[in-house]
């Protein structure tokens, strides 16, 4: 059981944070922008819909970088660290380490350059604009990266059917919220088409195009009678690999 997969349902965490700002520190905008540029430059987009000609983009970036990359990093953190750092602090740690691990930069130069900007926070960034990258960022943001694909086979389940959520082996990354594992739910919608996921999650089961279902769960079926709030329904969109017949 990996804690980040089971965040939904944790108790004793105190009051919610009511902060409505997106970026609580100005520097957070920069790491968000770096991440989104990486997504727009990701090598996998040559096979996306629409087919982005990333192989012709004048960038030194040659890796895949998707939401799955960032999520896998966050889910792989030691749970204490996960709670210790704020949202964009985790992004900064994960993305910096990625560029070091992949050999784009080395830890020494990042550390010495950080010292430089620590001493001179206003020192300028290099001035090397890149119009093709700028155009690709805009195009990616406008056109996206849908996982919708043709159905490879008819859906196994139908609307109205009662199912039981699977309990696959815990791996590095999943799209199955932990609190739903092994719980009974009812299918209320079979989405049209099939949906691929950015990466193959191995024994967890997603990646290749498969149907996705909207499943309704009574809160009492998840948390137990008397341990849940009344008159509450939880809906989740679940890939077919996460569903089993009820009986």
């Amino acid at each position, binding site marked *: 059981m990996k804690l980040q997969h089971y965040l939904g349902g944790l108790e004793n965490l105190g009051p919610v944070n009511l902060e409505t700002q997106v970026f609580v520190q100005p520097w957070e905008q920069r790491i968000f922008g770096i991440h989104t540029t990486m997504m727009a430059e990701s090598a996998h987009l040559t096979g996306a819909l629409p087919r982005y000609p990333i192989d012709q983009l004048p960038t030194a970036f040659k890796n895949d970088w998707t939401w799955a990359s960032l999520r896998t990093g966050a889910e792989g953190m030691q749970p204490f660290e996960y709670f210790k750092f704020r949202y964009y602090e985790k992004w900064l740690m994960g993305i910096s380490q990625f560029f070091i691990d992949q050999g784009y930069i080395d830890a020494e130069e990042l550390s010495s350059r950080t010292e430089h900007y620590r001493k001179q926070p206003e020192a300028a960034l290099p001035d090397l604009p890149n119009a093709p990258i700028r155009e690709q960022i805009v195009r990616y943001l*406008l056109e996206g990266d849908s996982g919708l694909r043709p159905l490879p086979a008819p859906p196994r389940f139908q609307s109205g059917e009662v199912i039981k959520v699977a309990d696959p082996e815990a791996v590095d990354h999943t799209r199955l919220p932990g609190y739903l594992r092994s719980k009974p739910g009812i299918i209320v919608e079979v989405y049209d088409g099939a949906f691929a996921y950015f990466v193959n999650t191995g024994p967890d089961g997603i990646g290749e195009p498969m149907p996705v279902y909207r499943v309704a769960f009574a809160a009492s079926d998840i948390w137990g009678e008397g341990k849940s709030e009344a008159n509450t329904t939880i809906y989740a969109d679940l890939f077919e690999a996460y569903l089993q017949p009820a009986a």
Partner: protein
Amino acid sequence: MSKLFEYEKQREAASAAKVRALEALLIEKGVIGSDSVDTVLGHFETVAGPFNGARIVARAWVDAEYKARLLADTPKAIAELNLAQGMDGAEGEHMLAVANSPQVHNLIICTLCSCYPWPILGLPPYWYKDPVFRARGVREPRAVLREFGVPVSEDVEVAVWDSSAQIRWFVVPERPAGSDHLSEEQLAALVTPESMMGVALVHLPAA
């Protein structure tokens, strides 16, 4: 003492310098351009943002047939409005609307990360990404809603939508009572990102 229990003393200054160093190195090495980050940020000031969602909600309030179409086929109904291009772009490829009513109050959450309908709502506010909301929102949504100042009576169903696959959900809040005299544009100005995620109601401005 273990390193786990240590924070950098000037935590924000350290992160600010590190992210600037990272951006500088990535520019020098040709991974990104010096205009890349600002291009991303500019998109969320001019093209994608809660101003789009507010217009969708206001239209649904003044036109019941539009609201019905929005709930039946969300992307098609959004495309009817004269919004910027890209309303089905990144993180908005598959969006669906759910409507609050006297019978049901909807709450949108992403317990695994921070999935959010970017084109029409922009980027998620801090509260949405905070682990406490993500943990408690599915376990005790009514208690969470009370903390946000939205008590929901027990005879009203609470529907929680956990964004775990392709769909990015948003809420059409209820139109405030006594708003008949307001234009569609004036109504749109009242709609907040929080109301379109279900943690706020829409109120008339204090007279």
